[in-house]
């Protein structure tokens, strides 16, 4: 049985490959790029490569020619009206739809879970299941900017020599506990009820409202003044919310801080190790990635429809296809 488990077949027909291009793909978005740029690049790469393959030949054109008084000829030839030079290449930008679980802002980089064509339905389900996201956020002490990011205009400067690692850790843990207390209020049931108790016994909970940012863990993982790095686990977050955390930390430390990097290292089950770098956004790599993501989704069906309000350990043994 296992001997015939996989059959390798080589395909050069663009039509078959286009039909296979449905699913979820994990990309790495670099900073400075907006999601729209990413989408444009990926789709134009796909179009170009599909057009380079064997595509649909032009349709046949049936012409009845000659004078009507004499017997007329029926001529069948390939239609010029369907020639790629006249109507344009077979695969065009409009033939692909691409959405993401989260429209990333220009400043944010990291994992971007995208759906291609029919994969957009899966993307919508993943989006509503409120999966966790893991971020690494870098901060710079001693400066504050008007947009909370290092690209903005510096509005304030201060010293940071008095800041110690202990201060930062203390603030982080207090911030985490405040957020977790908030979590029980946001779980959607009356906090004095039996239902609330039963939920609280289960551990960490998802918020009932998908618009309110919820932070589960804030941890300082690196401290080398003036730079420091936080690891944040959260859901429903926005880029500005994360930047504002750094800014607030800076103020609490009796100094200033501005954010220099927001890197998403995991989105739900999809790790940055699986993400395709921009040089790998080619047809071959994207199709392999779609297969890998399909395996992950098959192993964890609850990613598409989350019934459990509590956070549970995912089935995390993802076998990477290289």
């Amino acid at each position, binding site marked *: 049985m296992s001997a015939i488990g996989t059959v390798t077949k080589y395909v050069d027909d663009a039509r078959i490959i286009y039909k296979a291009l449905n699913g979820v793909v994990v990309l*790495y978005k*670099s*900073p*400075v790029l907006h999601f729209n740029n990413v989408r444009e690049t990926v789709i134009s790469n796909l179009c170009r490569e599909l057009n380079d393959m064997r595509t649909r030949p032009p349709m046949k*054109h049936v*012409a009845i*020619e*000659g*004078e*009507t*008084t004499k017997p007329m000829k029926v001529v069948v030839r390939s*239609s*010029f*009206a*369907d*020639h790629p*030079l*006249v*109507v*344009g290449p077979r695969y065009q930008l409009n033939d692909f739809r691409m959405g993401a679980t989260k429209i990333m802002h220009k400043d944010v*980089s990291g994992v971007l879970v995208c759906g291609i064509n029919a994969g957009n339905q899966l993307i919508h389900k993943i989006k509503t299941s409120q999966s966790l996201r893991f971020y690494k956020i870098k901060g710079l002490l001693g400066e504050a900017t008007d947009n909370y990011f290092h690209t903005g205009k510096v509005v304030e400067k201060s010293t940071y020599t008095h800041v110690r690692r202990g201060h930062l850790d203390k603030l982080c843990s207090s911030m985490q506990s405040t957020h977790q207390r908030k979590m029980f209020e946001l779980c959607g049931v009356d906090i004095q009820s039996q239902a609330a108790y039963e939920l609280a016994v289960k551990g960490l909970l998802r918020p009932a409202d998908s618009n309110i940012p919820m932070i589960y863990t804030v941890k300082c993982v690196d401290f080398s003044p003036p730079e420091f790095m936080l690891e944040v686990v959260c859901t429903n977050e926005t880029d500005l919310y994360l930047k504002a955390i750094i800014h607030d930390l800076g103020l609490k430390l009796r100094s200033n801080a501005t954010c220099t*990097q927001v*890197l998403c290292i995991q989105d739900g089950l999809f790790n*940055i*190790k699986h*993400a395709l*770098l921009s*040089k790998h956004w080619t047809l071959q790599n994207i199709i392999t990635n779609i297969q890998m993501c399909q395996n992950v989704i098959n192993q964890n069906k609850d990613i598409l429809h989350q019934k459990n309000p509590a956070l549970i350990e995912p089935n995390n043994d993802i076998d990477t296809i290289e």
Partner: protein
Amino acid sequence: MTSRLYTLLRLKSCNTNEIKNFIIQNVNCIIKNSKLSYCSSANILKDKATNDINDKSKNVMLNNIGYEKSTGNVLARDNELKRPRNIEFLEKNVYKIDDAVEEIDEKLPGPFDQCNEDLSHIGPYITGTYNFAKFANDSHTIQQLVKLGVELYKIESDREVLEMFLKLDFERDMKPYIQFLYDCGVSSENLGFFITRFPKIFKEDIDDLHTRIRYLRAHDFNITMIQTIVNKHPPWLAFKTQEIDHRLGYFQNNFKLNGSQVRSLAVKCPKLITYDMKRIRHSSFAIKEEMGFTELEIHRILHKAPRVLIRARTEVVKTFDYLHNYMNLSHGIISREPTILLCRKRRLEVRHRFLVELKKDQYDPTKPLYVSPLCLVTGTDNEFCEKVARASIHTYNDFLRAF
């Protein structure tokens, strides 16, 4: 027609005037239907008709007053009495109308007659369209252009071009131009590219085009130079000689170039000569004032990487800022390898930071372990890792993911 007249006359309670008008209209119809030449005098006919009606309606009125109870019968009889006169009067005309109709009948064939004419030119009307595909199977011109490799879908957005191409005949209007292009050195594989880029060449006068080529010959461009210019940048031929002269003069005076330098610039990057003057002015300002290159350095930049002037000014300034202020490269080093100014800042930044991590960022040519800035930006990531960074590509990929 006659029967219609009669039905009208039979109407009992109609107003006389209304009937009169109707009759006049009908008579007019008859006159229109039959050719005017066949009716002796239309007015006489009208007068006769009206008089007739007046008489008749008087009778009707009398009848109505006299025999109230048996009106219908009397009317019918009355009409029967009147009928012969009317028919007699109309029959003269009917005869003449029939004459006219017979003549038309000879010309118009019946629906089941055998057709001996050639009708292949008759087809449905052409409705509105926005692309060439509709005409592609019928138009010889378009088929020939497809065979030349012209990417018609790219130029159909320009309505003017679309209309022009449909009007032109390939053999009569296009062949001289294609012959001209071939004589200019546009190879047959390149003709499609040329027409795609500059479809309006068929609107230009062929003598003007000859003059534009002669202008280049007069300014010591040799034949291979002209070939490269025309092949590289087809819209060059759209510019009038005065305009090209003015542009070349601008580059010569503004950057203090000599004749051969201007010529090599035009051959190296013909697009720059025909580029938007406003943007060129902005770029040259940026290079001279914002970045502060000297005249000699600008000459080197123009010689090696003239596209620096075409690239968006803000992007060039960003790249220069990173090269000069973060990587500490002097103007001299940058101007010796000006292609690095064309590199995206992001690519430069990533590779530079990777080298910094490896402590291999040594850009001073006088010291050992020198890394050329050109090597830094050219080549794929694999080549970069192998030749410059000497690290594994996987390490570099992981480094890229950490940004």
